[in-house]
């Protein structure tokens, strides 16, 4: 069973993401409400997937993604945020983030993205969208 950690400062968003991840077949091994926790939790649990909000107390999720992927390029990060600016998306893409979900999260899309993010056929292939078509507009943006 793949594992995941959830980083979001909103308790109800963590609750929604937990339900969706469990529904997608994941085991949620840790949760936190601040970007400062990401690197430590990743190194402790080595999850298959990390969901990251952007606007959080302390270090924001985009900066946390940059730090995490610089230290662990193999990490799979799904940004889950209400921020849709091209600048933010580009920053995350340059850091190595391959998936970007916009709130309000569409549950069916989210489950599809979570499964796809850890699918060995797709992992590492999103540089060529034809290999693994993205599942929504924001993720499509990441793949360009």
């Amino acid at each position, binding site marked *: 069973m793949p594992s995941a950690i959830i980083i979001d400062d*909103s308790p*109800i968003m963590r609750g*929604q993401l937990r339900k969706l991840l469990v529904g997608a077949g994941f085991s949620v091994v840790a949760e936190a409400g601040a970007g400062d926790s990401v690197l430590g939790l990743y190194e402790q649990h080595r999850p298959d997937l990390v969901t990251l909000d952007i606007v959080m107390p302390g270090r924001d999720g985009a900066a946390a993604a940059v730090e995490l992927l610089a230290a662990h390029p193999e990490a799979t990060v799904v940004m889950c945020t*209400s921020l*849709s*600016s*091209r*600048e933010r998306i580009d920053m995350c893409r340059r850091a190595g983030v391959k998936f970007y979900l916009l*709130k309000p999260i569409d549950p069916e899309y989210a489950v599809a993205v979570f499964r796809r993010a850890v699918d060995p056929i797709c992992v590492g292939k999103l540089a060529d969208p034809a290999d693994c078509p993205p599942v929504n507009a924001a993720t499509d943006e990441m793949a360009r």
Partner: protein
Amino acid sequence: MNEALGLEVVYGFLEAAVRYLRTTVGLDAVVAAIGEPMFPPQTIAVALDFSGDVHGPVTWVFPRPIALELVRRLMCDPDPSPDTATDGATELANILTGRASEVLETHGFKCEIGVPRVHVGALPGGIAVRMTTADGPIDIVLSMSTTEVVPGAA
């Protein structure tokens, strides 16, 4: 030099808020009044601070039923605890502000959004907008101003 947000930006922000209220909590909202800030009882006020080209807070005032509707939808819980209303209001304000801020970027403003915080006390000054919905009115106070004039900004 600080300048008030242009009307085109304000209306764009409000249109986005209406759109995402529908997709987030299934509510059809109509702008009913623009005037002095109000703070009705049995509501929760949440503020988020912009920084950058646009700075200052936007404050959302939600009736508790709307805040709880978000919890109901996100948690798939038909009867959420009233204690979760503040979390619902906070996240709803976060989603609406984040998505509506797309309009600011469209108009050439680069800005960051701070962490949502519960607002206590009198509402700040600014452009106050009341939206009516089936679950009660939503009040929005746009207290932001722009730091510099950006080409294309109204």
